[in-house]
């Protein structure tokens, strides 16, 4: 009976909006409500952080810091009017940018290796959507290559690209979050795509050269 009740509760929580789940969690410290919120958004938040810092340990720290702040500030600064995920993303973004600016380092992409012993994160990922082995290999390489090129982008362009990709955030919100005008945000996106195209082209030419 307990299992059935738990299953029904879980099913009913899936139908609730983020705002409703937050209300339930605030009022009763309801475990299921918080679990549902985490399940919905954790991968996108983590992906954004990881893509920005390119380091799993740092990504773990920032991810934990983000949610510590989320829970601590939920009663104070989240007013249940706006989207919860946009509010959480703002916290994640600020934490990530704070880390990057503290480091003030140029990310050394020469550490990325195509050797078998590589510790590339994406090579350890298994993509269930691709069944053919060759296709899977190509896909992994594309993803690895893509992440490499994303890391090459200037921080402000990388931010816009990742916020748009992972959260489908309107440019108006991206502009507000990054404290720039909407035209500047659009411009950054355009230049990010131009730069990525350039990096892909350079990589292709390098591969052709090596192939000869």
């Amino acid at each position, binding site marked *: 009976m307990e299992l059935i009740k738990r299953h029904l509760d879980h099913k009913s929580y899936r139908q609730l909006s983020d705002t409703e789940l937050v209300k339930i*969690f*605030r009022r*009763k*410290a309801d*475990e299921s409500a*918080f*679990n549902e919120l*985490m399940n919905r958004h*954790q*991968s*996108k938040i*983590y*992906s954004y952080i*990881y*893509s920005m810092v390119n380091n799993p340990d740092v*990504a*773990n720290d920032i*991810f*934990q810091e983000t*949610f*510590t702040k*989320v*829970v*601590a500030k*939920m*009663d104070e600064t989240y007013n249940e009017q706006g989207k919860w995920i946009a509010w959480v993303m703002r916290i994640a973004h600020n934490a990530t940018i704070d880390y990057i600016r503290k480091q003030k380092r140029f990310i050394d992409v020469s550490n990325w290796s195509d050797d078998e012993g590589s510790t590339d*994160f*994406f090579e350890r*990922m298994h*993509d269930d959507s691709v069944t053919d082995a060759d296709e899977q290999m190509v*896909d992994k390489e*594309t*993803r690895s290559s*893509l*992440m490499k090129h*994303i890391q090459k982008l200037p921080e402000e362009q990388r931010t816009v*690209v*990742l916020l*748009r*990709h*992972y959260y489908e955030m*309107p*440019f108006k919100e991206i502009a507000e979050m990054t404290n720039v005008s909407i*035209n500047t945000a*659009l*411009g950054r*996106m*355009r230049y990010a*795509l*131009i730069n*990525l*195209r350039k990096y*892909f082209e350079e990589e292709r030419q390098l591969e052709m050269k090596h192939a000869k």
Partner: protein
Amino acid sequence: MQNSEDGCIRYLMKEMDPSEEVEFEREMLSDEDLLIEVECLRQTLHKLGKLPEIQPPTHLTDHIRQQALQTQQNRLNHNKRIISWFGKSVAAVAAGVLIVSMGTYMWPVSEGTAIEATTAVSGAGSTDDGTTPWVDRNDVIRYSDQFQQAGSLEFEAQRSNSMKKLVRVEVTEPWSTTRPQVQLTGTSN
């Protein structure tokens, strides 16, 4: 130029109104360079779609969930304690106000009784009530015992008036064997 550059992104990201979209597509058909740029950006955007979603480690999410529940539970308990303390404070203040109010209500009743007693005391010393001093057959002046306070002004006034009326009695019979003494009388005989 700026408008068309931003237009490329807005068009690709579907952030244009339908009318703006129609206008922009018309512009692309007439400007080959614009069309090429939009297509190049579209291809790169398509590659971005391969960016993966990465799951955080399970131990990390378990820890976060535990911490979140603990923090929120502590906050709720703390709020309950504050509300309970506040409720008790309000109840104590309300009880205090009630006691003071009752005391204030009862206080005027005691004052009224005291006023009545004072009135009774002052009334007792009035000569209009028939408390005039008198002399008994032994020629001893007596005052009414209705005076509650010997030191009252009324009493003193009447006593001093009575004393003023007393005169010395002259003894005319030489054979009187009584030793001469001063005798006072309030009568005029």
